[in-house]
């Protein structure tokens, strides 16, 4: 017993990487390569989307909206998954980096959801003849967008970031109920939106359309990681600056 107490546990690689100080170190180095890779992937994906893939036999050229719409739609749910895990990290491990991840991911998720709705609306006009329909998936995605906005509003309402992170975590966990609804809405309510063509089990897409889609999905995912890192860094720096200004204020009074 005394041996266990005397020897501090050697931190594993993950907790070493997740230490805020270490994070600031390696993320500074990671930003530039990530940005380059993201830009290259976007260049490749956009070339594929516009020139390297055939038009659809039914939809014609408008099928190219898919290469923007589907990655954004997948990320609108994926980012919530990241926030969900970070919320667990905040509540269970009380990790400061989890707080920062949550805070940085929420506006990004809202942006991806807005883009998914917007591109879907532009796609729906020529193919379905309407910008908006109260169909299961659209409605549940709109609700997801509102949840993102509500979470951002809640973040902004608190003065103390630590307390804000814990309270927002509870809301994030409760709001996660909407994610399965979005995912399975196309199977539960067989309304306008088509069911998933791309699943882990396989794809119903033609291979010459699948490649550009996967490249674009990868590009958008890398974009998310890049933006997440950058905004996490600025959030950490902002907190440090706040602490320093508070310390300076305390010093000047003394």
């Amino acid at each position, binding site marked *: 017993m005394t041996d266990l107490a005397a020897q501090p546990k050697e931190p594993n690689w993950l907790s070493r990487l997740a230490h805020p100080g270490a994070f600031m170190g390696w993320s500074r180095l990671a930003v530039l390569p990530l940005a380059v890779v993201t830009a290259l992937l976007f260049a490749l994906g956009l070339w594929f989307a516009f020139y390297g893939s055939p038009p659809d036999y039914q939809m014609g050229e408008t099928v190219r909206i898919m290469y923007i719409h589907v990655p954004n739609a997948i990320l609108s749910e994926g980012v919530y998954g990241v926030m969900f895990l970070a919320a667990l990290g905040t509540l269970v491990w009380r990790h400061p980096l989890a707080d920062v991840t949550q805070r940085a991911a929420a506006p990004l998720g809202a942006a991806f959801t807005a883009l998914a709705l917007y591109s879907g609306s532009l796609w729906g006009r020529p193919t379905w003849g309407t910008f908006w329909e109260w169909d299961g998936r659209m409605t549940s995605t709109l*609700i997801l967008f509102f*949840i993102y906005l509500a979470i951002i*509003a809640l973040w902004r309402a608190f003065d103390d970031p630590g307390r804000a992170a814990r*309270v927002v975590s509870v*809301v994030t966990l409760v709001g996660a109920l909407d994610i399965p609804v979005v995912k399975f809405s196309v199977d539960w309510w067989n309304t306008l939106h088509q069911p998933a063509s791309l699943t882990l089990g396989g794809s119903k897409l033609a291979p010459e359309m699948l490649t550009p889609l996967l490249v674009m999905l990868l590009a958008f995912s890398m974009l998310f990681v890049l933006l997440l890192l950058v905004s996490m860094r600025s959030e950490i720096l902002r907190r440090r600056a706040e602490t320093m200004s508070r310390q300076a204020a305390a010093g000047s009074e003394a």
Partner: protein
Amino acid sequence: MSALLAIIGRDLKLALRGGADVLTLVLFFVMVAAVMPFAIGPDRPLLQKLGPGIVWIAAFLSMLLGLDRLFRDDEADGSLVLFRHAAIPLEAVVLGKMVAHWLLTALPLLVASPLLAVLLSMDPNGWGRAALSLLLGTPALTAFATIGAAVTVSLRRGGLLAPVLILPLAIPVLIFGVAIAAGGDGSGAATLVLAAISLVCVAFCPFAAALALRVSGE
């Protein structure tokens, strides 16, 4: 159990002696419904068609408006700190307060619903369906309201934020509630689904709300 009843009794007493809060909420509920004919025109067939939706919008708004007093006063006078350290778990306290809140906000709406049925020219059957849907749906709304109130309790300006937080979550309740109230095909299934939603929410919400109260008190 007796502690739970004591909390329910305390909240009921506080609300009934503390002023006309309950009546104000009912008044708001009736007024929202009474304003609708001015907005959309006093056309009987149209009102009959829109009746279930109007009743539910009115109930929805009333529940959202009333949620602020769930924990606000307890936070202000320090009872919430005592609840956190009480002998019974905070989850049980939250459950008790939730039941009291339902009795104070949802039950008066049910009692006032015949008045709305007259204003919106619903037939007795239509009123029955609307009342049934309110009876089944308001527990879930109360549960969401409890979470919203718990999350925003430490905020000075939480009044508007809590409704914004729980509105998106409560949309399924609205969908199935209106489906029951409107009748027709699938209202039987909607009845079961809404009852299931309410049961799950009532079972799950005390834990979420208690967690929010704990973390915001640290």
